């Protein structure tokens, strides 16, 4: 944390130096809110927050549900179900995000078409689907590790007091596993936010795409990409602040658990 703060201060200094410098290396006028064009640019750039946040939230939501569905077979005693889980996780985890994005956005519609289905995938949903699916392999592993970290004795005790498999999951295993699952799951959300930048290449109007568009018209990459980085920084810092808070809250519960 200390390091973050120092980095932040150093960056601010760099920026100030750029603002005041007359050397012409920096041209903050492109995003100077006191000028009309600068203000328009800022509004356009910052306007990407909505899309970035919405895509990330939707993808995270789907991934949290999909991940649980993928994780459950991994806890089964049947090796067939367990291998289904392994194949999904290993396969999805191996695909880099960008190729998967291209495949979903350009390839999937072709499959739908050949099946005679009229399904359109726009940039927004292409990004949501890709982020959710590629992240689900990771959330599935988080669920699996969390559930498996609960001692075997808990399940056995649940069984000897007459609970069914689902009851013991519902009342004994899952509530305990949740405390270990939530923080890494929240961390995973940070990755989704950062990965959502890839959606710019299929034309989604999120933070990165908008920055690219202004760079093309204004030709001021340094200033605009600096702002872009700060935009993500703010977003991620807000989330990690939330994660900390969550960890602390669960942690204080955990301490009187054991």
């Amino acid at each position, binding site marked *: 944390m200390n390091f973050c703060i120092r980095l932040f201060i150093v960056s601010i200094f760099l920026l100030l130096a750029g603002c005041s410098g007359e050397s012409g290396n920096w041209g903050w006028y492109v995003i100077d809110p006191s000028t009309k064009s600068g203000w328009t640019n800022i509004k356009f750039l910052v306007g990407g927050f909505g899309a970035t946040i919405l895509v990330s939230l939707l993808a995270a939501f789907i991934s949290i549900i999909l991940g649980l569905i993928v994780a459950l077979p991994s806890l089964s005693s049947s090796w067939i179900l367990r291998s289904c889980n392994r194949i999904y996780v290993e396969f999805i985890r191996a695909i880099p995000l960008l190729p998967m994005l291209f495949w979903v956005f350009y390839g999937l519609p072709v499959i739908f078409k050949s099946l005679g289905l009229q399904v359109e995938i726009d940039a927004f949903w292409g990004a949501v689907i890709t982020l959710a699916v590629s992240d689900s392999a990771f959330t599935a592993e988080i669920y699996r590790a969390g559930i498996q970290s609960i001692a075997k004795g*808990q399940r*056995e005790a649940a069984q000897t007091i*007459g609970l069914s498999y689902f009851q013991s999951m519902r009342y004994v295993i899952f509530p305990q596993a949740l405390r270990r699952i939530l923080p890494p799951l929240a961390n995973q959300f940070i990755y989704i936010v950062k990965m959502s930048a890839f959606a710019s290449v299929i034309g989604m109007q999120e933070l990165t795409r908008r920055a690219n568009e202004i760079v093309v018209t204004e030709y001021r990459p340094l200033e605009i990409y600096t702002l872009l980085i700060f935009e993500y920084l703010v977003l991620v810092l807000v989330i990690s602040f939330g994660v900390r808070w969550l960890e602390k809250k669960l942690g204080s519960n955990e301490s009187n658990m054991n």
Partner: protein
Amino acid sequence: MGPVIEMREVSKYFGSFKALNSVNLEVSKGEKVVVCGPSGSGKSTLVRCISRLEKHDEGTLEVLGSILTNDEKTSRAIKSKVSMVFQQFNLFPHLSVLDNLILGPTKALGLSRKDALDRAYMFLERVKIPEQADKKPGLLSGGQQQRVAIARALCLEPEIMLFDEPTSALDPEMIAEVLDVILDLAKEGMTMVVVTHEMGFARKAADRVIFMDEGEILEENTPTNFFKKPQTERSKLFLNQVLNY
């Protein structure tokens, strides 16, 4: 009236390792059986087979009149009639003592919350810790935790209680408080199979002592005879180790 537990030629394998080797055992209603034997001799496996935490591979196992096969349905017949107390307590750490006690009665037996609570308080009195009802188990001492675990098992009003080394994880000063509770239960006529190395307890409570080694029952005897004149070399050796330490 036939035995409530009847094992005939029961064997259990872990891979190719034979953990139980043609075990024959009968326990009648109200009887207290103490099981002892060296580490790895299959004592836990024996009681775990009876409580269906393990499935047996050979032989027949009849509990409370139901023949238990490895079909899940047959174990449902004895569900909650056979209760078990573990060495490591296995209380649910995220639930209060009270919620630990009412979980089985409300979810498995379908009791109302109120009836389950009445029952829970009654058994907490029995194990002498009614004042801890609202605490999380993690805040209790080992001895208290094990007594909660016993109360939790009793809340299902089981017909058979199985104990797997209930005092082995406890500090010495807490062993007596737990054994006292078990002894009280024994006096009230509960059918019990107790795996333990507490030979004082065996003397006081057991109708019968069973000595196991390498997955076999080597000796079945009354406690008095078992301690005075053990019948096998291995039980003699074992008793020497346990008693003369």
